[in-house]
């Protein structure tokens, strides 16, 4: 069954301003279509076409999930989020592959859940496919990893930042191109330390992912000498996302909610579910910046970054997808590029060889972050500089100047080797 994505045809020339507006319109329409249509299972195998070039087959896997819609219309995930990043990387890999007689294909397993999803992936792995770029729940990721244990296959986690997947529940056949919560909150904490904004208060939501983010913020605060003076949970009942005139109540509610906090420099908010964090900037009792999941946000990618030669990268993505690049797209791009880089360097398309090469110290990836990116040997997390961002532009990039490390300054962010609880790679 073919997948049902609407992908605008790639155009060779840059998209004009009017073009972007038009694409935006198409994209907005697409959102509403996906919201109203129930997602249908779409499994598209990578095909068995014969060609003289040796082929590396990769499958993008996305699990169907029930999620509450975000507060802002601008925050709805685009229908092909993640997949488009993988698609761009396959195209980049193929441009290089032309010179080496290597070909890369991208299939999809999309719209399934749990066991059914795992069954489909295992079937593909048994058929010889070695690479799966996944955006699935943590539970499915672990089950999938166990199911693939004895096959020459590797999973790239592009969608989850959960720390335990890199620590107690780390797996030998899982690599993480998504930045971990620890990396993200450490990046933010380093900047707050650099600014000498050390007095913090924390507002977290009730969802498990909110709690995970809040825990990570607390760990980072401690690590970089910041003080969390007070904490509060923001309780909400999931109701209608929109209500006409909703701002009047919020405008009164947030100042009252933050009134009892002691004097602080920055209010941290942990709302991974995207249900209330957007209410806090500009509404706090005292005029202070907001940071965390909203306000000043640490991210692996910024759609407006033109640092380190990223302009052409952003342009290529815009032409391919008709939109700007999000973190998930970037993580998927890095996963597929890692495979391409391994194939280029080894001159091989054999999954086993490529997997071994990616684990070796020789592996390095250029990914528009101004330095080589490598996988941590103790948990297979891709090290990377992290953007600390406002909506339209980055504010800074961490690690901050002055935070030193004997191996690489990138290891000042995230769980470092002496602290890791991951056993799988020992």
């Amino acid at each position, binding site marked *: 069954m073919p997948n049902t994505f609407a992908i605008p045809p790639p155009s*060779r*020339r*840059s998209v004009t301003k009017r073009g972007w507006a038009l694409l935006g319109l198409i994209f907005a329409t697409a959102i509403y279509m996906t919201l109203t249509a129930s997602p249908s299972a779409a499994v598209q195998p990578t095909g068995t076409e014969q060609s003289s070039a040796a082929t590396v087959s990769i499958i993008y896997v996305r699990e169907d999930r029930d999620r509450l819609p975000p507060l802002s219309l601008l925050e709805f995930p685009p229908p092909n989020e993640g997949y488009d990043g993988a698609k761009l990387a396959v195209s*980049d890999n193929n*441009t*290089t592959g*032309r*010179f*080496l007689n290597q070909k890369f294909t991208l299939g999809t397993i999309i719209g399934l859940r749990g066991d059914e999803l795992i069954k489909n992936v295992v079937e593909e792995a048994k058929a010889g496919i070695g690479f799966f770029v996944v955006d699935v729940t943590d539970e499915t990721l672990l089950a999938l990893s166990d199911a693939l244990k004895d096959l020459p296959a590797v999973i790239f986690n592009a969608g989850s930042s959960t720390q335990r997947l890199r620590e107690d529940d780390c797996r030998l056949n899982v690599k993480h191109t998504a930045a971990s919560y620890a990396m993200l909150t450490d990046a933010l904490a380093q900047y707050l330390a650099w600014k000498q904004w050390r007095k913090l208060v924390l507002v977290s939501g009730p969802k498990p992912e909110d709690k995970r983010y809040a825990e990570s913020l607390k760990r980072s605060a401690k690590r970089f000498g910041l003080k969390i003076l007070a904490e509060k949970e923001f309780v909400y009942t999931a109701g209608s996302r929109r209500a006409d005139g909703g701002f009047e109540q919020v405008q009164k509610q947030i100042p009252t909610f933050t009134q009892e906090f002691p004097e602080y420099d920055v209010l941290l908010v942990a709302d991974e579910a995207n249900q209330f964090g957007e209410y806090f900037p500009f509404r706090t009792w005292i005029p202070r910046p907001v940071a965390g999941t909203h306000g000043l946000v640490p991210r692996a990618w910024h759609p407006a970054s033109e640092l380190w*030669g990223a*302009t*052409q*990268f952003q*342009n*290529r993505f815009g032409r391919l997808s008709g939109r700007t690049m999000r973190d998930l797209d970037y993580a998927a791009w890095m996963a597929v590029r890692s495979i391409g880089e391994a194939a*280029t*360097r080894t001159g091989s398309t054999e999954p086993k060889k490529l997997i071994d090469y990616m684990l070796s110290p020789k592996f*390095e*990836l*250029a990914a528009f972050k*101004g*330095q*080589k990116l490598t996988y941590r040997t103790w948990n297979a997390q891709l090290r990377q500089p992290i953007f600390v961002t406002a909506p339209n532009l980055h504010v800074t990039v961490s690690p901050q100047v002055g935070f030193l490390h004997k191996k*690489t*300054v*990138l290891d000042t962010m995230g769980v470092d080797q002496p602290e890791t609880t991951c056993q799988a790679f020992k």
Partner: protein
Amino acid sequence: MKAISKSLLAALIATAGVSLATLPAHAFRAFVSNEKDNTISVIDTDTNKVIKTMKVGQRPRGILLDKSRGWLLVCASDDNRVEVYDSTTYEFIKNLPSGPDPELFELHPSGNPLYIANEDDNIVTVVDMDKGTILAEVPVGVEPEGMAVSPDGKIVINTSETTNMAHFISSETHKTFANVLVDNRPRVAQFTSDGKILWVTAEIGGTISIIDVETQKIIHKITFEIPGINADAIQPVGLRINKDDTKAFVALGPANRIAVINAKTYEVEKYILVGQRVWNLAFTPDEKKILTTNGVSNDVTVIDVKKERAFKSIGVGRYPWGVVIADK
């Protein structure tokens, strides 16, 4: 009011003309492209002073001199064109077609054609300098960047930043005949004067590949180590080899240093501290000085080649990127 400002302008132009005419005959002039300012700073390398700031197209990066025609060529990346200026009067002459997003280019030793790397389009565009027409488009790897032409004019080299190759292109057939895999994000390529060896810097890989041109094989890799500087920050970019192929000078990006390399043994002999994020560099024609463009500190460092020491820093525009130096 208008008349006054006009006459004032005329006076200024006259003064500029006079000061230009009074330059000593041996003074060299360096042209520095300021990526963020859309300007070219012209430096008198005797006095080490900026004598002129030229307004050019958007995002000027690659810059070169066509000595036979007395032209200064500028890649105006965001305007998708190559602009041609008179290198003595600084007057605009014409635009050349370039293909989208031109970044770096190189001229055939005969003065024609021009080879342009189109970073956004995975091609090298070949342009006839006189007719201003596109002769060929050569498909290369992802994000073409560095360009070099062999001294005999037979081989054109392009480096592709995301494909990580040095592509060997025949200047007769306009086809690639070899693709040499180098380290991550190759930037600048240069032939030795005898045309036998090709040097390619890799910014993210942190190395220089020394390639035997005849066999297209890597015969050596130069690596760098600077006490107190994180290995990730050592990023070789711009590269110049002297005329007798004995010494190479390499800009190391955020390591803020120029490496001095013995071009026979490939040993790194010295690191010279310069401005921040050093991109590119150029010899004066007498090879007595080197000027480096320092992107983050908005200045140019002048190095005494014999003493291998930086002795002067010249403020230019924002994000200085490329540099070329004219004979007179």
